């Protein structure tokens, strides 16, 4: 299975050197990649249908528990087949759709990358690798949505999609890691056994909250739904692929995958029911007001995703069966409708529903595909959609709470909306009078209209013989979602019961709505009045606010002036230390313990203070340097007075050498210039004195405390006994703490090398300003 994931990644990178070649007729090779992968997974169908899980393990970062663990069960297989199968259709379709585009190669590189990432998501048996691939899908879809990178809208949509799904990914990671840590394993197949432990853990609500945010952002659930209509700026093959069958379903996949691990609790089910239920109704109604074909499809997709979330929230066996079937139903008809829309757009250069009509006269095969898909979406008996809808109604009607009737009502309303939306997208452009402008429209390449036709026909075939798909795919899928064995048999005819009546009623009402509802610009504008309370508007505002704040922050804190950084750091330190000092109460001095003061110390201190005053006030560079060395010598004398001969010698020699260094370098520089205005030095002086006072107070406070001399005593007592030395300072340096000294000499050597190379380095004249 690893190879199927890698194939896409490798070919995608191969398109960098061979991209040019692929723009020629060799591009015919591209669709064969998904074909091969599709066949590979098709070949696995009988194995998985028997209930076997194919597992593959490859160590990657074993120390972190990140490994390439792949597992193929019913759920993964269904998704893998969708990804590669619809991928095949899209590759054929996209090759013609983008023929001659300057970034043709780039497009397929992104698409392949995306396909691999998607396969990785659904096959990963390790939640961390799952996350890695999850992020990869976000990134590759960012490139795909922003493919028309010269359009500002396209770029903005791509950014919105990336930030929403990326943010979700961040939460998802947190949730996954939490769950993994609690369960003690990151392997999905091992997590199944940890269900009880996870569900009863006190952090359980947090975990599922985080996972939900990840799934909802990806699957465009309310209130994160708005990136999906925006993402329709992508070329239509991308919308067909990403936003019907694959990427947006990744969130659904995640929820389904984690249902046996985290699900089956009140909290899990209720949240999914509410979010899914609201999303499906909200989006189904919204779809009816759109005039842009792709926009209609986008909203009906959101609604379908809502249905899936809703079904997972029901949490009954019937609901899982319904979900497993509806995933396939929706993928088939929605991909078809998207591709049809793409053809219409490609040939007529408009997607405006108010302008389109009568295209059946010129695009007959496309019309057939569209009608089949629209009927499947509407759930006409004998289509696959009918079975899907039946199962949904069955699941809601048999829900064990009293809400069954209300849930069913929600499902019916949603489906009425979807019926109408499906007709609008699939039938409306083809019926009525053909506008004169479109009379010259002709059929596109075969590779563009055959794939949607095949998908649409499949919808019909599965509808008539539901046993094929039921036994081979959906049964195992439902088992994987439920996490336990269940019985399932798909039949076309369930008998004349409530469900059937509901189905027919839905179809009829939907059709009426379709005929009554005339989407127009005016209605769209009326709907858009509510935009200022929409999540999109709010999030955009928040985004703008964050931008403003960071601009302000950057201006204040990162203004590029070193001294401004300094003063902020110092002020902060003063506040912190001052607060701590204040907490500690008054500073006391133990006069009895002080060493006596002699006149020469006083003299030295006086010289020191004078030199310091000179440094601060002088405008001559030389005076400043000389004063610094005077300070150094004074400190050296202090060391002499207070029994530190080693320090005195070192300070003396170092001070001499530093002065020599200064003189060597600085005598060429100009005198100081007074840059600052009058007020600034006073402010700085106050800050500086404040800092000095605080440090002094800290010193006094420490002095008052008795200090522990255990370590010093150890060194003092053992200097000779253990290290045969009598100068304790030297013994510490070369023996007790010899390693530190060793590294100190290394640091010094590095400094010397730095100086050496700085001086020897000769910039080329071009690098000078």
């Amino acid at each position, binding site marked *: 299975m690893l190879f199927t994931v890698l194939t896409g990644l490798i070919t995608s990178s191969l398109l960098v050197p061979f991209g040019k070649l692929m723009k020629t007729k060799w591009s015919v090779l591209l669709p064969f990649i998904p074909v091969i992968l599709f066949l590979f997974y098709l070949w696995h169908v009988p194995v998985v249908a028997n209930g076997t899980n194919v597992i593959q393990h490859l160590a990657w970062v074993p120390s972190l528990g990140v490994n390439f663990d792949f597992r193929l069960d019913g759920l993964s297989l269904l998704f893998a087949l969708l990804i590669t199968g619809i991928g095949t259709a899209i590759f054929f379709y996209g090759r013609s759709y983008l023929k001659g585009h300057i970034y043709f190669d780039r497009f397929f590189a992104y698409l392949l990358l995306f396909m691999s990432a998607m396969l990785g998501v659904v096959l990963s048996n390790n939640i961390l690798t799952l996350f890695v691939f999850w992020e990869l899908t976000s990134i590759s879809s960012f490139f795909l949505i922003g493919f028309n990178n010269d359009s500002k809208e396209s770029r903005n949509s791509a950014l919105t999609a990336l930030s929403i799904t990326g943010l979700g990914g961040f939460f998802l990671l947190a949730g996954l890691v939490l769950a993994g840590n609690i369960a003690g394993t990151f392997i999905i197949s091992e997590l199944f056994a940890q269900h009880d432990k996870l569900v009863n853990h006190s952090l359980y609500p947090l975990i599922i909250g985080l996972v939900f945010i990840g799934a909802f952002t990806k699957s465009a659930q309310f209130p994160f739904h708005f990136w999906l209509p925006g993402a329709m700026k992508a070329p239509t093959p991308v919308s067909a692929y990403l936003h019907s069958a694959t990427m947006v379903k990744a969130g659904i996949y995640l929820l389904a995958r984690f249902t046996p691990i985290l699900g089956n609790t009140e909290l899990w089910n209720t949240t999914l029911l509410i979010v899914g239920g609201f999303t499906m109704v909200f989006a189904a109604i919204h779809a009816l007001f759109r005039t842009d074909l792709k926009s209609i499809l986008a909203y009906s997709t959101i609604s379908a995703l809502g249905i899936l979330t809703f079904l997972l929230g029901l949490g009954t066996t019937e609901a899982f069966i319904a979900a497993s079937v509806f995933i396939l139903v929706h993928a088939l008809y929605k991909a078809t409708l998207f591709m049809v829309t793409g053809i219409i757009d490609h040939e007529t250069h408009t997607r405006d529903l108010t302008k389109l009509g009568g295209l059946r006269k010129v695009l007959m095969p496309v019309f057939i595909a569209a009608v089949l898909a629209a009927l499947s979406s509407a759930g006409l008996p004998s289509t696959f959609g009918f079975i899907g809808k039946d199962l949904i109604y069955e699941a809601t009607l048999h829900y064990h709470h009293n809400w069954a009737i209300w849930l069913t009502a929600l499902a019916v309303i949603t489906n009425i909306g979807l019926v109408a939306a499906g007709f609008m997208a699939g039938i409306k452009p083809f019926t009525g009078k053909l506008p004169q402008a479109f009379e010259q429209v002709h059929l596109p390449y075969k590779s563009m209209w055959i794939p949607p036709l095949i998908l649409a026909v499949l919808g019909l075939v599965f509808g008539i013989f539901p046993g094929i798909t039921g036994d081979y795919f959906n049964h195992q899928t439902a088992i994987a979602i439920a996490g336990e064995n269940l019985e399932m048999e798909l039949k076309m005819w369930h008998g004349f019961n409530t469900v059937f009546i509901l189905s027919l009623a839905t179809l009829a009402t939907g059709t009426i709505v379709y005929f009554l509802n005339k989407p127009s610009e005016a209605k769209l504008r009326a709907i858009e009045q509510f935009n200022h309370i929409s999540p999109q508007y709010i999030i955009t505002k928040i985004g703008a606010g964050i931008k403003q704040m960071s601009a302000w922050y950057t201006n204040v804190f990162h203004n590029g002036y070193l001294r401004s950084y300094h003063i902020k750091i110092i002020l902060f330190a003063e506040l912190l230390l001052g607060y701590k000092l204040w907490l500690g109460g008054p500073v006391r001095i133990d006069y009895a313990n002080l060493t006596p003061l002699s006149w020469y110390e006083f003299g030295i201190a006086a010289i020191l203070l004078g030199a310091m005053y000179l440094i601060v006030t002088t405008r001559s560079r030389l005076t400043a340097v000389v004063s610094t060395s005077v300070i150094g010598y004074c400190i050296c004398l202090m060391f002499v007075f207070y029994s530190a001969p080693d320090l005195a010698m070192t300070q003396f020699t170092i001070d001499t050498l530093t002065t020599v260094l200064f003189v060597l370098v600085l005598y060429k520089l100009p005198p100081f210039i007074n840059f600052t205005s009058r007020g600034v030095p006073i402010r700085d002086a106050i800050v500086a004195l404040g800092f000095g006072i605080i*440090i002094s107070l800290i010193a006094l406070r420490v002095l008052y405390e008795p200090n522990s001399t255990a370590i010093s005593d150890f060194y003092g007592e053992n200097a000779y006994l253990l290290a045969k030395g009598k100068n304790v*300072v030297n013994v510490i340096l070369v023996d007790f703490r010899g390693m530190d000294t060793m590294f100190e000499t290394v640091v010094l050597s590095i400094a010397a090398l730095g*100086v050496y190379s700085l001086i020897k380095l000769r910039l080329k004249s071009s690098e000078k300003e």
Partner: protein
Amino acid sequence: MELLLVLILGLLYAAGVYLILRRSMVKLLLGIMLLGNGANILIFVLGKITKGSPPVINEAYKVFQEIYADPIPQALILTAIVISFGLTSFAIVLLKRVYALVDSDDLDDLNTPEEEDI
């Protein structure tokens, strides 16, 4: 006399801070050096200073017979002094190079003009 040393180190810190708030690169460097000196004295004072009894064992004995100055702060400061020389020399040379390139001692001249449209 501890109080005197405390006063000196406080003033060294103050002078150091004041200098690093200047625009001149040389003053910045001098400020860093003063801060270093201040820190050395701080460590020194905190180790309880003693007069006239260096941490060297008398020739005739194998262990200390009387009170002696704390050797640990001394070892620390010795290291610090030597390292600060490495730092200072590197900084001085850096300063020299910058001066050769920019022909100014003003730190603000090192700022590249901001791109307004970022």
